[in-house]
């Protein structure tokens, strides 16, 4: 059966080579192909570890667990529970992402036992004081951007398409992001973010890709460097589990309160 994989891959690449394709069409085709290949994983459980570094090199750590449910025809549902730092232990965040309309988000504050519906206008804001914004780690629907193919390039010896993405959704902190998409995995190897004034803001490098269920590629480590303030954040994923049997009923206000 292995013989089929490269054959299928070359077939799907074919339309991208048509000379009549505009850079916009080619960019969109690459994004759609990446989305198609990353469809059907069902659900994911994973642990996240963050190390935040300021310009002086002082470190601050975050630990959390996340559950994600793939939703057909809409953005994913996700539930994140914080373990560290300890003062926010058991604080939890429930999100129903949508392609273009505003996401639905609830925050659970364990000290008061209070569930708060919160505004999703903060997409550009820092996630947990890190250099990752909410929009960097939430579900990446094709419709959230328009695209343009720029050129072919290499990242650490791997062949990549370079595409630019322009956010369509409101409240993005970026005018554009430039993504190096691996030609084999159809996953980002590197992303460069430009702020609302189109100045270079951040650079994200994604490392140690592993394949799950023989199909889905996920990075084990990402490093985001803020080029304007000198801060950086490492984000590590551990213990990826796919298709664990999560259901819609695992993502509501009750599970938000009780998930540990």
């Amino acid at each position, binding site marked *: 059966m292995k013989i089929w994989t490269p054959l299928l891959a070359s077939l799907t690449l074919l339309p991208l080579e048509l000379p009549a394709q505009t850079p916009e069409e080619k960019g969109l085709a690459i994004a759609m192909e990446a989305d198609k290949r990353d469809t059907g994983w069902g659900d994911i459980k994973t642990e996240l570890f963050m190390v935040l570094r300021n310009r002086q090199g002082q470190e601050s750590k975050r630990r959390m667990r996340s559950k994600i449910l793939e939703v057909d025809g809409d953005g994913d549902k996700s539930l994140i529970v914080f373990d560290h730092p300890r003062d926010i232990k058991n604080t939890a965040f429930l999100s129903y992402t949508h392609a273009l309309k505003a996401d639905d988000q609830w925050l659970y504050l364990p000290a008061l036992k209070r569930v708060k519906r919160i*505004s999703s*206008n903060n997409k550009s804001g820092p996630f947990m004081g890190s250099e990752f914004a909410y929009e960097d780690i939430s579900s990446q629907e094709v419709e959230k951007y328009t695209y343009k193919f720029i050129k072919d390039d290499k990242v650490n010896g791997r062949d990549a398409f370079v595409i630019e993405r322009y956010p369509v959704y409101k409240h993005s902190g970026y005018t554009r992001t430039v993504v190096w998409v691996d030609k084999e995995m159809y996953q980002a190897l590197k992303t460069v973010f430009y702020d609302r004034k189109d100045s270079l803001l951040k650079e994200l490098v994604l490392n140690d890709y592993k394949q799950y269920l023989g199909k889905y590629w996920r990075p084990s480590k990402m490093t985001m460097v803020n080029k304007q303030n000198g801060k950086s954040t490492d984000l590590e994923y551990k213990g990826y589990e796919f298709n664990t049997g999560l259901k819609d009923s695992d993502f*509501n206000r009750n599970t938000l309160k009780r998930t540990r």
Partner: protein
Amino acid sequence: MLSILTAHNAVMAGEWSGYLGAEARIFLDDPTDPRQQGNTLSFVAQPEYYTEWDDGNQSLLFIPFARIDQHDTERSHADIRELVWLKAADTWEVHIGIGKVYWGVTESQHLVDIINQTDLVESPDGEEKLGQPMINLSLIRDLGIFDLFVLPGFRERTFPGIKGRLRSVPRIDADDALYESSRKNRHVDWALRWSHTLGDWDIGLSWFDGTSREPRFIPTIKPDGESVLVPFYDQIQQAGLDIQATKEGWLWKLEAINRRGMGETYNALTGGFEYTVVGIASTQADLGLISEYLYDDRDEQALSLFQNDLMLGTRLTLNDEQSTEFLLGLITDLDDSSERSWFIEASRRLGDRWKLNIEARVLSLQDPLNPFHALAKDDFIQLELLRYF
């Protein structure tokens, strides 16, 4: 390797967490009653034990709490905040034990929230609660979440003691509280709640039948001649409504109640908005602007300080590594602008496991006949340092 071990422990053997802390309250004026003390130091502990089994579908949570206060023997107290067994399935949950439940959406006061009694000696803002014995069945349906509560056993509100500040003069003598029900604190209360999300709208409807968490006060002369206020707990029925509409940066909020059984039937509401400006002045900080109107249709003898009041507030969230936050608020009486209350709350994580909380409250009241007028002499600044483990 370490992380694998930690995750394993969390599932199998249970896990302790929680905090220990010290708090200093500095009072700016001399007290109304000379028996009341000045600045006070206190120590607090709230450990937490959690264990789960049955693939996470059953769990046990235990949160004891204790505070020791330098002066106020009533504020030196202990409580079981939670000791609850949970069994969860896809469409239902059962909670049995001592639990804590929060209902509502507004910031300035919490009209709808009625399950737990207020632990008033902890904080004058009424946000700290005592554990409540309960059996709670929660049904999770397409039409929303339906909660049924049976509440055996009533918790009396805590009040500062003779030497304590932030109390009325005459003081409240909570030792011989009176009840409408002959079953006193053994009356079994019950409650229902339906809550649902419809697009941008989060809606809750609730019904409570039982012992009022909020007492009325009966002026009494003790055998030794001291005037005190004795709490009287009525049997009430309360219907509650809470709605939040989340429209981009705007959160529109409304809470309303209708309460029978505590004197005349009355209505009260809190309504307003919170608007958040993301990334003010090209920084990563968010600025929230809060305004709420507080209304209560009881006449001037009402217990509530909020008959026709306006709350204005601003919340600054720096979104930095230390999670620094400030909340500044003002509640003012629209009928008498000399009655107003200022407060500021600020918090910041220090290093990895410490947290500093700062709070200050300033109250102006002009009505000398109101026993709570004494609170106007209790403006304070509070520093609290907590160590999490």
